[in-house]
């Protein structure tokens, strides 16, 4: 392949307060290649594509597109050069039709009125090209995530895309839908389109990409031809150390059952049964939409339970509200910690003590001395890095925010902790710390349920893994049986 370089970054640097998000990164993209961009959260992938798309200003370096060098991109410039980005969050207008979304902002002809007919027929052409059967007149809000994804791609294609950047495009898709998307990517590739494919799913990278570049902590690490590399090498490049180091070992052998879930239903889940022993970490696995987070929400009382029983310490309990769950020492570290776990405008101490603030009060008045003591204790125990206990949460890093969420749950003396995606949006070092903390907690006899879409992490941390598929139990796997393929089979319902 003597392909032409269509896009190249030269010594690009982007600085945020306290962090170098892009550290002198140089990287070439070739015409007609599928180039995977790999890296942990915080590796700088998003920053890189934002720089290319003109969503942020670079502090240094050059973006070279086609024939020209640019010090800064702007969204308009980027578009006019044929660069289109499909972000994780779709940029679609839900109450408008697929066709209208695709041609949003484009005038098909000179007439004053919108030419719906041409719009629809052109949309149909693109959909036919992809061999997909979506009605161009269908409203986007009525389409499945996969179909919406295709509308996004169609939107890019309609704009005569030369470089298509896809940020975690497979996240909302099922296995078969991912395959469909890959077919479309292959077609685009044959048309000479360069596809930059960002993902942390290694299987996909091997399936679709020609070359793969690994980034870590804002730095360029390496580029490999996909066919010349392997899983292990890529993981080592991403993590920067041997994988076995990442997951600490545990000492205690769990015996006593802490929580038992019997035929639990509600929130889209049906008939779920499993138990967790004190000191055990049970993983909850499944694809997006399999009902993992939904189950977590049921257990912590956020959503009403419709059927089944929950037994804690050998006794049946009723959970009707989050307060009930807290009373029974069940704590949740929510998936979306900013939206569900934290008060970002408030301080560290305020957040840590919030769930127990009533108990810290005498006649309604908060005992501020005790409050400070408790906050201090958890700050030290969890090694929360903050200049002061009054520091607003929004100014802390993702890892430290997660520690505050954990501190909140620990403050209520939870004996059963549900970690929903505990390492999402956290950098590698902090991840390791969270893992260590989880193991310490388990060693102290706390029962842990860990929800994660990161197979690597589930396999490394769990004693057992419960697999969900479409809201039902698909199976339960003991540590001895762990193998990644087995899970994918279970989770996609093909087993």
């Amino acid at each position: 392949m003597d392909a032409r370089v269509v896009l190249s970054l030269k010594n690009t640097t982007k600085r945020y307060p306290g962090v170098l998000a892009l550290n002198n990164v140089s990287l070439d993209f070739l015409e007609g290649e599928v180039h995977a961009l790999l890296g942990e959260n915080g590796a700088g992938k998003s920053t890189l594509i934002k720089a290319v798309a003109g969503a942020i200003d670079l502090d240094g370096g050059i973006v070279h597109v086609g024939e020209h060098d640019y010090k800064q991109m702007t969204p308009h410039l980027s578009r006019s050069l044929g660069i289109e980005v499909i972000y994780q969050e779709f940029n679609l207008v839900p109450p408008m039709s697929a066709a209208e979304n695709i041609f949003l902002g484009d005038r098909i002809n000179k007439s004053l009125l919108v030419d719906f007919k041409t719009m629809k027929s052109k949309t149909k052409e693109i959909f036919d090209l992809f061999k997909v059967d979506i009605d161009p007149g269908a409203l986007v809000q009525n389409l499945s995530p996969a179909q919406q994804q295709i509308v996004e791609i169609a939107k890019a294609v309609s704009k005569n895309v030369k470089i298509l950047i896809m940020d975690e495009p497979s996240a909302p898709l099922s296995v078969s839908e991912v395959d469909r998307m890959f077919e479309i990517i292959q077609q685009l590739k044959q048309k000479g389109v360069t596809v930059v494919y960002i993902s942390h799913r290694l299987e996909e990278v091997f399936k679709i990409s020609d070359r793969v570049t690994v980034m870590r902590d804002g730095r360029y690490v390496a580029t490999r031809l996909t066919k010349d590399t392997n899983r292990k090498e890529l993981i080592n490049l991403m993590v920067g150390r041997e994988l076995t180091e990442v997951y600490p070992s545990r000492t205690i052998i769990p015996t006593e059952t802490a929580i038992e879930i019997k035929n639990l239903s509600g929130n889209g889940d049906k008939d779920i049964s499993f138990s967790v022993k004190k000191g055990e970490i049970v993983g909850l696995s499944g694809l997006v939409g399999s009902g993992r987070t939904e189950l977590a929400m049921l257990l912590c009382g956020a959503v009403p339970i419709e059927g089944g029983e929950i037994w804690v310490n050998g006794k049946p309990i009723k959970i009707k509200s989050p307060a009930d769950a807290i009373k029974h020492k069940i704590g949740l570290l929510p998936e979306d910690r900013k939206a569900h776990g934290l008060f970002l405008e408030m301080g560290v101490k305020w957040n840590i003590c919030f769930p127990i603030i009533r108990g810290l009060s005498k006649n309604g008045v908060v005992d501020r001395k005790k409050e400070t003591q408790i906050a201090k204790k958890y700050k030290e125990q969890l090694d929360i890095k903050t200049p002061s206990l009054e520091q607003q949460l929004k100014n802390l890093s993702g890892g430290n925010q997660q520690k505050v969420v954990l501190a909140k749950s620990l403050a209520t003396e939870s004996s059963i902790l549900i970690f929903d995606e505990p390492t999402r949006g956290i950098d590698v070092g902090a991840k390791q710390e969270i893992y260590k903390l989880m193991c310490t907690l388990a060693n102290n006899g706390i029962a842990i349920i860990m929800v994660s879409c990161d197979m690597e992490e589930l396999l490394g941390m769990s004693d057992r893994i419960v697999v969900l598929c479409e809201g039902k139990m698909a199976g339960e796997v003991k540590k001895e049986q762990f193998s990644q393929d087995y899970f994918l089979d279970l989770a996609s319902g093909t087993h």
Partner: protein
Amino acid sequence: MKNQPAFLSNLGGKIGLTMRKYAPLMILIGLVILFSFLSPNFMTAYNIRILVRQVSFAAISAVGVMFVMIGGGIDLSIGSQIVFTNIVLAIMMAYGKIPPILAIPICLLLGTTLGLINGLLVIKLKIHPLIITLGTAQIYKGIGFIVANSRNIIGLPDSFRVFGQGYLGPIPVPVCVMIVVALIGSFVLTRTYFGRYVFALGGNEEAARLAGVNINRMKVILFVICGFISSITAVLLLSRVFAGQTTTGLGIEFDCLTAALLGGVSFKGGEGTIFGLITGVLIIGVLNNAMQLASFPDFYQNVVKGAVLLIAVGFDVYQKTRKARETIARVPAQG
């Protein structure tokens, strides 16, 4: 803003924060200095006393509204609640000959009930409080007008005069009440767990719910507090006017909201201090008072007050979008 050195933007942020915290106070001090030069009658003990008494009514109500606002809601019906409770209180005492000692608690109970109705509607209908209280405002006001039946209700007992017209030492009674309400409000908001819940409710309702806070009960309680405090204002205002009129308290929510927003209470909830609120109230009071001293026609006063509200909200939004931009910039950094 392009390629600004990091320390500069940090400095900018810090100044912005300090500005935001003390801007209301600086505006107030600026206005006071300005008007004491412009009008020799402004900085006199007599005028100051009048000024503070003038604002005390709105200030008391504003404390109630602030509780609702910090909790993420809004109450547009307080003026109408005052119209309603004020008329009922006047009728009870003037026509029913019910002694104040009995009539006042009934009035407070009525105000509390009106707040309770607001709160229950908000949680049952699950409609934004803005719309709920816009509706109840019309209803409460309408009932007040119906009950009043276009009468100017006079013949209130003389013993009732003390609340609006009396003095405790040199300080007018309404000002004393304002101080007490403000101190209690501040104490509750900053020192009690209930106060924490209020901020949590406005700051992140879902997080508060997951932390075990009974969200619906909190919302109702906040509207009840607001209704109760509004009826205190109704008592004081009736005593001050000393005749039951349907114009009493009408539109007071405008001053309360303006004051709250001026004083840094966020429209989005989760933010606000009594100190800021009182500063905001005083700004409005100083503007009103100075324009009266300068015998500005009422209409001009409306223009100025409206402009002040826009500036206040504009400032709030400006700070918010700026914050949002900073947050967006930080997200990938933490990745």
